[in-house]
């Protein structure tokens, strides 16, 4: 289908991937991942797309300073943030292009 949206439907939560990280998801802007907290969702995301978590989260479990994570429109500062089954996790990354 020429206009089919690239959406992976497996998994309970939807994760919107920042443009610079879509190389990990085969170009998909929205993917699915399981988990009741952001920590679990990102762990599942990393199982599906190995290496993507490290681009967002550093060795000390801190969100990298050029990344912002939102659950719906709630800014997330802790990985223990709950993620509801119908909620979307938004990964936002600093962009430099002009």
């Amino acid at each position: 289908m020429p206009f089919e949206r690239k959406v992976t439907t497996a998994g309970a939560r939807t994760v919107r991937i920042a443009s610079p990280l879509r190389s990990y998801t085969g170009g998909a802007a929205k993917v699915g991942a399981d988990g009741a907290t952001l920590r679990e969702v990102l762990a599942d995301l990393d199982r599906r797309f190995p290496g993507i978590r490290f681009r967002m989260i550093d060795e000390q479990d801190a969100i990298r300073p050029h990344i912002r994570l939102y659950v719906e429109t709630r800014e997330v500062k802790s990985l223990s943030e709950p993620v509801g089954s119908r909620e979307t996790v938004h990964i936002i990354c600093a962009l430099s292009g002009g």
Partner: protein
Amino acid sequence: MSLSAAERDRYQRHLALAEVGAAGQERLKAARVLVIGAGGLGSPAAMYLAAAGVGTLGIVDCDRVELSNLQRQLLFASADVGRPKTDAACERLQQLNPEIAIEPHALELRAANVRAVIEDYAVILDGTDRLATRYLINDACVMLGKPLVSAAIHRFEGQVMTYFPGRGACYRCLYPQALEAAVANCAEAGVLGVLPGVLGAIQATEAIKLVTGLGEPLIGRLLTYDALEMSFHEFPVERRAACAVCGERPSITTLLDEDARCAVSLERVRRLAPGALREVLAAPSVVLVDVREPHEFETGRLKDSINIPIGDLPRRLEEIPRGALPIFLCRSGRRSLAACELALRAGIEAPGHLEGGLLAWAREIDPTLPLD
């Protein structure tokens, strides 16, 4: 600043908007707006601002027009290839609206000149393509109290946010730190030509709103646009009390180029001479981290020090307890200083290192310490 008959004719569609009217158009005529970067974002932004009758429009760019620019940078024509962008842009904008003044700034924005360039303008638009320049512009706008409309693009996605002094988050609140290496390069990644048209037009809209006082600017709101999904999302961005430039106790109080700032961050390293290290050893929060190789560590080490070779440090930083004051050690003080830089980048506050390394320690404190 009253409008001439020709201007009343030119801006008739604005005058017909009760929200703008003659008063709004006169504000636009009196306004000084600076567009930094005459690229994908700056092109449409500058064209709409010129057409809208912004009385003085500054354009900053040090590049020349390239053929590959023309896919998205509508300010330029094929015949402009090879010309300085400011020359071609000023000519085109003046053709579009001879009633306004265009001020070219054919220079690379650096810490040494940013203040002089922006201080005479009321609203600043950032459409540059380097993160270091984005931080420099942000810091200058915070320090000079200038509203800043910042946009950026990548492939099919764009972002835009407005900073207004004292009323919302700045770019460093949004992204406290970003390295070019961590963020994909637009020239390599590609960009849909029309994408910056959307974001640049939004920047111009924001500037017009700020000048005329109309509507609700994107203060404290990050707007993202995905051209493939054809979707916009809006996210709240809070001002951070700990922000390095607009926070309650700013650490950035002078304008520096971002590459220099990385080096300057080493000023936060506590450099301890052997005698000073001996004084602080008893403090309970001190953790001695020896970053030499294991065989060097086995030969001779300071009591209670732990060994994390420098090459392993990035992935083993979590072994340093949170809240501890790490002091890095090595043979001569070079690896320990590099360890401090890694620690600072990882967010560890004020790491320390032994100046002169264990060689200095053996010389000044303990000559019996065996070293390789």
